[in-house]
């Protein structure tokens, strides 16, 4: 019996020839990522367990990316950044992307990719559930808590239960109005919010391999919304090209064996996919966009690790160019690199930034912003009974701030189309 990519990576990092699903193994960690929300707690446990003068297991393998509560007056949130700074200085960590400096990046999952920390075949843990995003690079990556992160800081190792794999294959070609967000919302709607619990979501098929790295990241980002432990896409030329521009560290490429064992396999015909939303208050509350045209909205939010990348804004700009939004529309680039893209890349002679400003959108600074609510003064946060169409990844009660607000998750196309009309709108109505 062969192995899946995930099994091969875990076996290699556990020093074994072979691993089986459900087996517990200790793996060597290539990268540990933490941020401002969970970093201080992780550091606290690390010191308590390994001593005040303890050193991290390998300073080259620790990446700290403040991104959650950045542009706020909240004194506790700002104190947490100070704790990160002190730790970075004490441990002399080379990969720290400090806020208020030129080195600031923004949302950790995209910053990891853009700064060359995502490499095929590696094992990456992060104190954020959306760490599964990095699986887009053919690597094992998953979210953990402060305790596990502190354990890694001290030892460079962590125990992992080898997950069973589920394979989602998309054959043929996606229609041009379909984005990765439609696909992941479709699949989560099919399997439910616990449909992949403890398992790997492996994406395959020519339609998936036609996706850019940004779209692949969107697909992998929301595996956690199906309960998945990790998501993975085999690395190919698209991956190699992206990685080559950002790091020269060597890496290993793993592929699933033809006779690997899967818990579940499903094949979709890519050409039949439709724009999809997740209605309040669960990412698996799937509906076709065209079935929701009676839902009036008063906010559109385009941003986050899953919806605030260059390709997301390019899609939104195609619909918004030369038009005016009908509701409050917030644009939040995930990282400072995306912000630079908005200022540089053009559409019919205008930069994307000019397209958004001319359309009447409000532009925020690169960060997680209102994706998870956050402190009261967070850009785009809900405070009342707002009905929001959002490119973010979660719509649990209160996720964007107010328990009374209602969030519809959607692709950047759908969020932009709905911004123009004031109700949930199928992008085909505007594109045609």
């Amino acid at each position, binding site marked *: 019996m062969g192995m899946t990519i995930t099994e091969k990576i875990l076996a290699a990092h556990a020093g074994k020839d072979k691993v089986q699903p459900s087996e517990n193994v*200790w793996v060597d960690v290539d990268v540990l990522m933490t941020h401002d929300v969970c970093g201080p*707690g992780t550091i*606290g446990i690390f010191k308590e367990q390994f001593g005040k003068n303890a050193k991290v297991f390998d300073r080259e393998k620790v990446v700290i990316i403040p991104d959650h509560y950045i542009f706020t007056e909240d004194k*506790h949130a700002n104190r947490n950044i100070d704790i990160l700074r002190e730790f970075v200085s004490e441990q002399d960590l080379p990969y720290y992307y400090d806020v208020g400096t030129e080195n600031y990046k923004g949302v950790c999952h995209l910053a990891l990719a853009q700064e060359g920390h995502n490499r095929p075949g590696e094992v990456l843990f992060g104190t954020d*559930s959306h760490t599964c995003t990095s699986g887009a690079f053919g690597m094992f990556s998953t979210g953990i*808590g402060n305790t596990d992160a502190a354990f890694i800081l001290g*030892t460079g190792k962590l125990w992992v239960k080898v997950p069973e794999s589920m394979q989602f294959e998309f054959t043929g070609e996606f229609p041009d109005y379909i984005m990765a967000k439609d696909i992941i919302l479709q699949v989560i709607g099919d399997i439910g919010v616990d449909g992949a*619990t*403890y398992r790997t979501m492996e994406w395959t098929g020519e339609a998936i391999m036609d996706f850019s790295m940004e779209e692949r990241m969107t697909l992998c980002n929301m595996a956690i919304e199906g309960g998945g432990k990790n998501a993975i896409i085999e690395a190919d030329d698209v991956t190699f090209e992206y990685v080559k521009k950002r790091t020269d560290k060597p890496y290993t490429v793993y592929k699933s064996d033809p006779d690997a064992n899967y818990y579940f396999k499903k094949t979709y015909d890519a050409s039949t996919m439709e724009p999809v939303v997740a209605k309040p208050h669960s990412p698996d509350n799937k509906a076709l966009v065209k079935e929701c045209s009676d839902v009036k909205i008063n906010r559109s939010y385009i941003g986050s690790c899953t919806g605030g990348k260059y390709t997301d804004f390019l899609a939104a700009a195609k619909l918004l160019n030369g038009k005016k939004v009908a509701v409050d529309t917030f644009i939040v680039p995930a990282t400072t690199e995306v912000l630079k893209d908005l200022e540089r890349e053009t559409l019919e002679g205008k930069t994307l930034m000019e397209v958004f400003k001319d359309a009447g959108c409000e532009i925020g600074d690169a960060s997680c912003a209102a994706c998870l609510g956050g402190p009261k003064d967070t850009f785009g946060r809900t405070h009342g009974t707002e009905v929001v169409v959002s490119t973010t990844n979660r719509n649990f009660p209160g996720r964007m701030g107010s328990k009374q607000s209602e969030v519809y998750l959607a692709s950047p196309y759908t969020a932009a189309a709905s911004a123009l009309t004031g109700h949930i709108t199928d992008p085909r109505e505007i594109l045609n």
Partner: protein
Amino acid sequence: MKQIIEGKAYVLGSDIDTDQIIPAEHLVYSLSDPEEKKNYGKFALSGVPADGAGLPDGNNAFINEGSFESEFTIIVGGKNFGCGSSREHAPACLKIAGIQAVVAESYARIFYRNSVDGGFFIPFETPDKLAEETRTGDKLIIDVEKESLINETTGKSYSLSSLGEVIEIIRAGNIFEYARQSGLIPSSEA
């Protein structure tokens, strides 16, 4: 490890996510400062919509105004308890509020792992329809060894699923003690 855990039940539904357990705006307090961390108890479960707070009736406060500890010490949940974020503040806030055990039909992976590795409380699973048959305020008694739960208020008994291999980490106290006992990290390091 306590062999018998008893206390009043606080009943919740399915898919209780970490934003309901501890809303993101509260993730700013220190988890190591003994006074400041009481805020996590104060806001534990504050994101649960009122109609789902303390089933079957709802509208039951988990934490009374001005307090950081709950009168309820056992949470009974449905499917996929603790889904969403990896924030360890979720099991931590329940522990700070005085929770000694959670018994659910199933868990989201990271919440389960955090509860065990951090040694906050035992996340029990039950194959039985405990959440449907328990009322908030019922007195529950858990026997860890026997893997059983008795609802003293109704007199009904329920089975708990075996904890499997993680029992070794639970017995040791947390992942660090487990690693020290098994020689993975030196015991003198702390």
